[in-house]
């Protein structure tokens, strides 16, 4: 078949698929990606007790740190019953690693240490703008800015009341599909341009009401759940960061942080360390409950970043710079080796050429 005909056929296929699909997507979410509402994944411990219920897909090797700091790893998935069985990895002794000490561990980028006594900047955004709370918003999803934006605004206001500069992006990343993370990447990059101290992607989960409901300070509210992506180079720092935040929250408001889910995925956390995805309650909780929970969490964030546990690190900036240079050198050398091997057509030829070069130099 000649190429012109191939092109025409493909263009027609493209129009047939893109055209109606755009209309279909525009009229309803016919291919919604989360588990259907009412269906949840249940994570079980080795004894069969429920650790977590979530609308999020769970994969093998995903890990979960419970509210009492037991770390479990998924070893078996039952797709039919939507259950995930785990094994206990360890009981974690949470350590509060100060924000400035975490910054010192960041290898490739040079980051200015926070100045003593001043509060910095926190960035917020929503990848899944449509997420809403059924008891308050009447639906679990609003095409546009859903109930989650109200929760985000409360979080932003609570941080701002404490003297923190907040960059809150209301940018839309619709349609509500998995491409939203690709679209929200642009938002993250825009927010990172002003060098925030941390960045949060605020979501809500899909789970039974009881999964997130908690009574704190004589009020019913929702817990906050952390999600850390396992598939990015910042996993190590983000793990310590999430655990440190949880440790502070456990001291200030025991039970406020539901747990930490280490899930498969990037979640744009490769763009910056100190990047966390928050689940503020579930669709079955009321929005005011989620707002109360996130408002308390703002206090935790303030305490961690700008409170007594944040140490001055100006005198250690030189060490940070040295580590950054080493990191760049390390990256350069690694990349050079990879490209050299590709160039010469394999490890064997690369080694032969390198040794031949060395022999020639020695003879000279």
């Amino acid at each position: 078949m000649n190429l012109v005909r191939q092109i025409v056929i493909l263009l027609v296929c493209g129009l047939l698929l893109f055209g109606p699909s755009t209309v279909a997507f525009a009229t309803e979410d016919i291919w919604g990606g989360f588990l259907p509402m009412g269906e949840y994944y249940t994570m079980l411990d080795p004894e069969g007790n429920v650790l977590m219920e979530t609308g999020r897909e769970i994969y093998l090797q995903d890990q979960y740190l419970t509210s009492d700091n037991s770390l479990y790893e998924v070893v078996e998935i039952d797709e039919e019953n939507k259950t995930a069985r785990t094994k206990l990895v360890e009981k974690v002794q949470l350590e509060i690693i100060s924000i400035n000490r975490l910054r010192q561990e960041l290898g490739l980028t040079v980051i200015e240490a926070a100045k003593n006594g001043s509060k910095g900047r926190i960035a917020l955004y929503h990848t899944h703008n449509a997420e809403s709370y059924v008891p308050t918003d009447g639906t679990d999803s609003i095409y546009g800015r859903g109930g989650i934006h109200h929760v985000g605004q409360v979080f932003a206001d609570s941080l701002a009341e404490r003297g923190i500069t907040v960059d809150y992006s209301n940018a839309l990343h619709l349609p509500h599909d998995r491409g939203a993370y690709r679209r929200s990447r642009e938002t993250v990059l825009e927010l990172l341009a002003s060098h925030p101290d941390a960045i949060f992607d605020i979501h809500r989960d899909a789970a039974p009401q009881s999964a997130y409901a908690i009574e704190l300070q004589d009020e019913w509210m929702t817990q906050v759940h952390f999600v850390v992506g396992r598939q990015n180079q910042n996993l190590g720092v983000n793990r310590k960061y999430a655990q440190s935040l949880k440790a502070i929250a456990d001291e200030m408001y025991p039970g406020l942080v539901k747990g930490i889910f280490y899930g498969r995925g990037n979640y744009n956390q490769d763009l910056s360390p100190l990047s966390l995805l928050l689940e503020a309650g579930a669709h079955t909780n009321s929005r005011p409950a989620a707002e109360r929970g996130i408002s308390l969490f703002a206090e935790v964030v303030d305490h961690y970043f700008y409170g007594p546990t944040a140490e001055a690190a100006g005198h250690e900036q030189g060490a940070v710079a040295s580590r950054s240079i080493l990191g760049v050198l390390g990256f350069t050398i690694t990349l050079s080796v990879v490209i050299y091997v590709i160039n010469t057509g394999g490890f064997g030829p690369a080694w032969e050429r390198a040794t031949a070069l060395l022999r020639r130099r020695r003879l000279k």
Partner: protein
Amino acid sequence: MPALPLSVTMLAVVTVLLFLGLGQRILDNMRLTDRTAILILLLMIVGHFLPTVSLSPYLAINLGGFIPIGVVVYLLMTTSRVEQRRAGIVSLLTALIILLTDKFLPLQPGLLDPLYSGGIFAGLLASFMGRSRRGAFIAGMVGVLAVDVVAIAELWFRGVKERITVGGGGIFSSMVISSFLAVVVAEVIGEVRERIKLGGDESG
């Protein structure tokens, strides 16, 4: 010390490596000279720092976004008609597959992360439809761009009048990552095929 974006640092490192003559094989397969490749990378670094300009209450354009698009146009203009058509087909197919996976796969990015899927599909398709690294680069970028255009169309169709920023994100935007990843995938597949073919010739 001022903080330098990691992406700019890494791109600068890649530029230096090309200047030193590394990556020659990949450039040869893309039919690019060292000079052209270095110029493209330098322009992308510069583009990272360009501002976003508002054209209307609903449309803004990040000037830096024009550079990778300009690179695609350059690659298309400096190749044969057959290659142009092939690149167009691969781009369309890549966009179709990205759209389908966006809609059919789970909402969370666990399986086949949406950041990398475009580049992988483009690299695979370009490899099996002409083994073109240039086509892979074009499809990686145009495929993702096309899906974003469909998303914008859907928003407007549903009456969501939102300010759209085109071309944002700079060097580490999903478009640019897709294009570079597509070339890497195509290169790896190409090398493996060559190895198999050479192995067959030697034993044959």
